[in-house]
């Protein structure tokens, strides 16, 4: 779930000394198994990664094996937002709106270098990582990632889903962005992260 509030209770596990009851753990297992193996992706495909996503969904690599062949282009019916491709600033409120329209439980995969960090587009137009706008669960590097890479990322998300526990109270909480800035990460942190690469205000690297 990305940026949730820090857990104030002990973590739970399947270990025998855990205090969870047998029914709760079995129920967790069933629910997580069901969720992980039928994640319906919402392909927010913008650029080249979207073509690799389509190739992954096509017959050679086949996302249907993982229960993901039903692409849900309506966010209301989707589980996973796969952001495939670069996100410019003009598109930022759109992806924010789409994320907010998705009902819980929801996860996000940031596919490709451009969605994760802005990629090779370190300029005035591109969001330097969609995790400044929406909370991301899995980052898949690559430009574009090979279909095997995307499938690895999806499997990683499935592991994450399977390790969720219903007794974890804050797991479905949606963290609201700071209303004054509308950002999930404080502005000072964003500026600090962007500074080594020379954003205009600081512009530490000239000519590049």
């Amino acid at each position: 779930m990305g940026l949730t509030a820090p857990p104030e209770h002990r973590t739970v596990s399947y270990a025998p000394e855990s205090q969870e009851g047998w029914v709760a753990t079995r129920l967790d297992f069933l629910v997580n198994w069901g969720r992980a193996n039928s994640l319906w992706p919402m392909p927010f495909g913008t650029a080249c990664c979207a073509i690799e996503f389509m190739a992954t969904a096509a017959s050679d690599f086949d996302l249907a094996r993982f229960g993901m062949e039903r692409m849900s282009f309506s966010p209301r019916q989707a589980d996973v937002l796969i952001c495939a491709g670069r996100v410019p600033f003009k598109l930022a409120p759109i992806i924010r709106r789409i994320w907010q329209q998705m009902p819980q439980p929801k996860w996000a995969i940031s596919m490709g270098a451009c969605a994760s960090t802005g990629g090779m587009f370190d300029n005035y137009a591109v969001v330097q990582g969609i995790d400044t706008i929406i909370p991301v669960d899995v980052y898949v590097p690559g430009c574009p990632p090979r279909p095997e890479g995307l499938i690895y990322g999806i499997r990683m998300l499935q592991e994450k889903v399977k390790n969720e526990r219903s007794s974890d109270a804050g797991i479905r909480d949606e963290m609201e962005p700071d209303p004054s800035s509308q950002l999930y990460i404080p502005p000072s942190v964003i500026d600090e992260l962007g500074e080594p690469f020379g954003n205009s205000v600081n512009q530490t690297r000239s000519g590049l």
Partner: protein
Amino acid sequence: MTRFEVVRTGASATGAQPATQRNVSHRGAEANPSAKALQDKFSTAIKRVEVIWAETIVYVDPAAAHEIIRWLHDDQSQQYDFLIDVTAVEYRDAEVPIEVVWHLRSLPYRRFLRIKAQLPKGAPLEIDSLWDIYKSADWLERECYDMFGIRFRGHPDLRRILMWESYKEGYPLRKDFPLRGRFSRSEQLRQALAQNPEARYSMEELTIADAFAELPEDMRERLGKGERTGE
């Protein structure tokens, strides 16, 4: 059913079969015959003619650009019916004026021509639009305005096309615009997110049917006064 015809070689006035250019010289190639025709017809408005890498470049007076291109389009011996591109170039040297560049092609005669008009930087950047001659100039000029701030007089709907309409940082392809923008990253994000996607309808769209009546009162007032919405 459609049948396929072998490509016709076209009514080329020169009569030669086109071939891949080889060993193109930097400056010594022969000029496009249209350059001579232009100089004969518009003597003072043609500033100079250059041939670089076998492409003819004609520098024209900005005030006469529309008339010259209209003649190139209409005249039977020229027939430049295809507008390839409208763009602008700003040089790194601050003294050199901004150039508006038009790329024209004559399909019947198989010719290519580049027309340039220089706009000095001290004055407002304005030039006549070619929309009444070529419909393809519509979006190309909008993009030129968006990236450089050059206003095209006579364009029906000159507003930003690639950036959002209320983009405040400036004109991106100008040389005084830094690569990463003028604002800090968090400020850019804040401005981008501040817009409501539903506010992104242009005035033209909001005049449709009852959409206007459903807007909040203050928005209607602002729009009535001519203020533009987020798109």
